[in-house]
């Protein structure tokens, strides 16, 4: 199926440092993700969901299989081209926010544009616009430490949006947040997906959070064990929430 946004085929990852006999972190993963999808990736710790995420985000390289982005095999890309894709096509949102602590919120948001060569005035304008969009228009000069967890995650989302990405990779974006803040963040991502058509790949181990997505992929022991539309469940998921 050429022309799909993201296609992986027989994707595998074996860590060199792993003890002999350990099964690979990822094996035989074959799937495709289209433009505009909102996909939740779930699975217990060590299931390979984060490894999958890092490979899709071009932060890590697979040891087996192929990964085609917009029909192009990424194995042939140089480190500079990989950096370019991360800069222009992807936007990352991490569990620990990963903001640079010593620069202001606005400077954090502007950072991807520094690497894309956007001019200073345009960077400041866009950073302010993005901060306003995530509801933090008044906090541009604040250092991350002065902001609450929810506010920091919004700054991180604003940063992820800086270069108009096609894909947002969110790795446990609500992992450090309380339920209400988590819901606010997820509402924001959902509306983003609906309004701008940006593809979202969300890694989480919380059923409640996965409910926001439209498609669910479950990993276990490095393999995909489920791939299908999210079914609206009532509340028994609360039990799974405490699982690691």
């Amino acid at each position, binding site marked *: 199926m050429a022309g799909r946004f993201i296609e992986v085929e027989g994707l595998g990852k074996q860590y060199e440092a792993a003890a002999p006999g350990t099964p690979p972190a990822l094996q035989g993963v074959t799937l495709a993700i289209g433009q505009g999808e909102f996909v939740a990736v779930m699975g217990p710790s060590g299931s390979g969901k984060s490894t999958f995420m890092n490979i899709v985000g071009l932060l*890590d390289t697979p040891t087996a299989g192929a990964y085609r982005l917009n029909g192009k095999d990424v194995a042939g890309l140089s480190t500079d081209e990989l950096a*370019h894709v991360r800069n222009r096509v992807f936007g990352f949102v991490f569990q620990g926010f990963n903001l640079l602590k010593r620069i202001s919120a606005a400077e954090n948001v502007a950072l991807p544009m*520094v690497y894309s060569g956007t001019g200073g005035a345009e960077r400041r304008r866009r950073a302010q616009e993005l901060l306003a969009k995530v509801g933090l228009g008044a906090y541009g000069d604040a250092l991350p430490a002065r902001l609450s967890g929810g506010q920091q995650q919004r700054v991180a989302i604003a940063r992820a949006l800086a270069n108009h990405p096609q894909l947002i990779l969110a790795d446990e974006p609500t992992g450090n947040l309380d339920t209400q803040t988590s819901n606010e963040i997820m509402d924001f991502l959902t509306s983003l997906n609906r309004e701008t058509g940006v593809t979202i790949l969300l890694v989480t181990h919380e059923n409640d959070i996965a409910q926001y997505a439209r498609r669910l992929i479950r990993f276990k022991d490095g393999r995909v064990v489920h791939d299908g539309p999210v079914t609206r469940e009532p509340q028994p998921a609360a039990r799974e929430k405490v699982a690691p």
Partner: protein
Amino acid sequence: MNPLAVVREAGRSLGANKLRTGLTMLGMVIGVAAVVLMLAVGTGAQNQVNRAVGSMGSNLLVILSGSTSAGTLRMGSGNAPTLTTGDAEAIARLPAVQAVAPTFPGGAQLAYGVNNWGTQVLGVTPEYLSVRDWPVEAGDPISETDVRSSTRVALLGATVVEKLFDTEDPVGKTIRIRGQPFQVIGVLKKKGQSLDGRDQDDSVLVPITTAQGKLFGNRFPGTVRFMFVQAVSQAATATAEHEITLLLRQRHRIQPDADDDFTVRNLTQAAEAASATARILSLMLGAIGSISLVVGGIGIMNIMLVSVTERTREIGIRMAIGARRRDVLLQFLLEALMICIVGGLVGIALGVAGAFAVGKAMQIEVAFSASVMLVAFAVSAATGIFFGFWPARRAAGLRPVEALRYE
């Protein structure tokens, strides 16, 4: 990423952690300041010695008359009246000799108005001033005519002027030396201390014939106590020494197996020894300074290593949002460079200021050389850049996921 943005990013990163930046810079500042300060003091001392050496006159030999003995009592050198003005004239004709200054010294009390001062009076010929490289500051030097007619004229050293005249202009005034009236025809330029610490300016020059005949009444007319001999070049001093010895033995009719009745000393050797000592001192201070520079460099390296390691995660974040390896490298290189440039400049300023303060407090001379500052600066800069660059290279070589995972 455009170059200006890289510079600004590096500047912002430095400004964001002022303590770390300050500490790194401190190593650089101390190292450069130490080298500049130490070498300023060392070079100053060397200059001081070289000037003292130079004040003696260049390519000099001194000839002392021999010793006398009365029975078993042997007097020191310079006591026997064996050197004569005739010897001086003969020596002056030797090929290796540039000029000869026969000298007849004595102690005398000077008086002018209500002031009086005891000092050394040197009977000299006109050659004395050129041989000792001692210019007249005001008035006229002693002339051949003065020597021929043993006139009572005097050239005063700076200290003597100070003691006798305060602020008055001494030229043309009449002073009394041992009660005899002498006209002051000139004042000598200040010469400073000799190598052994004597004040060379505390002396008066008069025509040698006046000193011999009128001032110090001499039982052996025409004799001199010692002579300064200037060789034609530094290399010629040894030849001159040899020629003089042969000539004087011949003129004094000394038998082949008998001892010389005079002593020839080569002052260039003493001068060389003094210069060498000063050079060694300067080198030693330089070495101490260089050690501080190395220590400073190690300080830079330490902080750079720590700071890069500590920022591995930051590097990961930057790579995740699109920094290329060369962006990361360039940022760290620039940070190191900025620290080094600012630290080096502050170090130079501090070293110069410190050297001036030390010079003032300890009353010693300090001297600066641009090349020393440049080298100190370059060495620290190289250390800082190398040790900043190397760990950054390592971090930039990581896969982003590893750098991100770093705690």
